[in-house]
């Protein structure tokens, strides 16, 4: 069902069309992101590419996705050598890419930093952040609400299925989650980490279910690995808990509709597409006509709303097919 590319296109459409969309001068934009080895990152990539294709005046160069900062540095160096007009960069590691991003800025190429923040203010002209810590907080806050509504009491069993544990963003999400839980005197009783893949999700989830015979709430960081997580739940015939997801894939939203999942925390994969738009404006020396402001703002932090059965219809178009 989820393989229709056409439905992908529609995701990026519902935006106000402004005069900024009128063709301007030809610009070359370089885009580099991590290896698109799972749904969310694939969606990041495909929406970015789709965004680039929408503008006749944009020549988008996409570097090979990689999880190796050293390799990504060389991609950015290549962009600088080529003299692109702007760079959209979703770094594998914010700190590791700061130096080369600063070099680009010094060379007069505006850099749009997406999702993972650089360690220096001077490394990017504009930063679009998905809020990882905020995502954890949203999940945690929602979990607190569930505890209260369902009278789970002080000893509610809360489990967390994290993503790739070695990534700082996973740490941010986990920190946000446990900080928010503290607000209602709860804590994470069990934590496992998968690798953002379906297979790893299934693996850690089935072990988790064995480790904890009774669970009240499970937060899974990523809806893509969630396909595997859900398969593990189904196989073990376990549904005594509230299942909260992350990222907001179309699959997850359908599960919410069908009542198989409680909620998911949105982490829009359209950030890079937004980055392309902004990069184009920066390269063409345009402002943001959607705002009162004349200039493109320095920092945009995306909201991490919780999608539940109540509002799922509204968010469904934003759900990415993973």
């Amino acid at each position, binding site marked *: *069902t*989820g*393989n229709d*590319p056409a439905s992908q296109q529609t995701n990026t459409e519902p935006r106000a069309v402004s005069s900024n969309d009128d063709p301007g001068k030809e610009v070359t934009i370089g885009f580099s992101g991590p290896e*698109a*080895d*799972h*749904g969310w990152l*694939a969606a990041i*990539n*495909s929406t970015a590419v789709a965004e680039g294709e929408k503008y006749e005046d944009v020549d988008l160069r996409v570097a090979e996705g990689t999880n190796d900062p050293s390799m990504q540095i060389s991609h950015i160096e290549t962009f600088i050598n080529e003299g692109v007009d702007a760079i959209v960069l979703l770094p594998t590691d914010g700190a590791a890419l700061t130096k080369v991003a600063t070099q680009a800025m010094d060379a007069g190429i505006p850099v749009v930093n997406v999702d993972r923040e650089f360690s220096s203010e001077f490394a990017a002209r504009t930063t679009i952040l998905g809020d990882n810590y905020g995502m954890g907080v949203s999940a945690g806050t929602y979990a607190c609400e569930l505890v209260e509504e369902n009278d789970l009491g002080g000893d509610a069993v809360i489990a967390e299925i994290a993503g790739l*544990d*070695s990534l700082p963003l996973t740490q941010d999400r986990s920190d946000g989650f446990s900080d928010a839980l503290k607000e209602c005197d709860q804590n994470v009783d*069990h*934590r*496992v*980490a998968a*690798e*953002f*893949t*379906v*297979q*790893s*999700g*299934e*693996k*850690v989830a*089935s*072990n*988790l*279910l*064995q*480790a904890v*015979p009774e669970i009240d709430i499970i937060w899974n960081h990523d809806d*893509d690995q969630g*396909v*595997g997580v*859900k*398969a593990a739940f*189904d*196989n*073990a015939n376990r549904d005594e808990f509230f299942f909260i997801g992350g990222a907001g894939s179309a*699959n997850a939203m359908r599960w919410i509709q069908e009542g198989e999942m409680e909620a998911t925390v949105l982490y829009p994969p359209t950030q890079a597409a937004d980055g392309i738009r902004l990069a184009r404006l920066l390269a063409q020396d345009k402002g943001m006509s959607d705002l009162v402001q004349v200039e493109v703002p320095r920092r945009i932090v995306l909201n991490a709303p919780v999608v539940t059965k109540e509002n799922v219809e509204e968010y469904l178009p934003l759900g990415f*097919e*993973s």
Partner: protein
Amino acid sequence: MSVASEERAGTGGADVPSRESPLRSVTALFSGPAGRNLGLVIALALLCIVGMITAGDRFVSFDNMMTILRLASVIGVVSVGMTFVITGGGIDLSVGAIVALSSVWASTIATQTLAENTHWIVMVSTALLVGAVCGLVNGLLIAYGRMAAFIVTLAMLAGARGLAEIIAQKRTQVVTISEFIDVVGGRVLGIPVLVLIFAIVAVAGWILLNRTTFGRRTLAVGGNPEAARLAGINVKRHTTLLYVLVGVACGLAAVMLLARTTAGTSTHGMLMELDAIAAVVIGGTLLSGGRGTIVGTVFGVLIFTTLTNVFTLNNLDTSTQAVAKGVIIVVAVLLQQRVAARNGSPP
């Protein structure tokens, strides 16, 4: 020179028993296949004891055992295939990628529609066929192109995963044929079908390696390819077949993953090559070829999956898990070596 032959038993090495110490006679019991794997048995037993002590009933429950076995099943099937390739003197780094490609190909809309109109066996055959073809390409390049197995399968690793991504457009393709999931992902007499498949593959693999000409020739090709050639074995064809075999195992693993995760994606089987090779080598199969054991491989797989299970039951954090895993691998292998040495088998 009319000395009776038994006087000179030395020539044949048949004098070994006479030189056996009392200790040897005791452990002689284990000097068969059981002995060779005694170290592994001990390692696994220790692991289970740790599991029982730290997690009690949660560890020993039937459900948990089945969870461990189900986790072992997919990687287990691949590892059995890998045992053949390694025993035959080769290596296959592309298993994970082949699993991904097979799973993706078998879960495309086209295949699924066809399967819906006919029977889900179409999906299964597709996966097996894709696996076999990948293995065939590997095998032909290695055997007839005389290229290093490491390089060819590394290229296949890149190529097959890239192709899988192109086909799936990096999406997760959900399997909609519920009958397939119910059957392959279900249970028979309380035992998960996946576990049964693994058991059948392991037994079949054992028979194939130890009881058939194919298996014996595999050992010959891996142990001394020149001798095998001189004995009239078609070494190239045999090598090719070995890669086809592991390819088919990957296809089967893909089918199992489809049922298990209800989805096909290009991320399936990520880093599976390392896990499979590790299980095979820990099991006692020589990386240089010529000596292979399916029983050891099965133990290797079980040790790794039990390890993960025990870690999770104890809520260990991933970094600590990694360090512990490193230490345990070393200890397990040292143990295995010492026990084997004591049993008089060559190291």
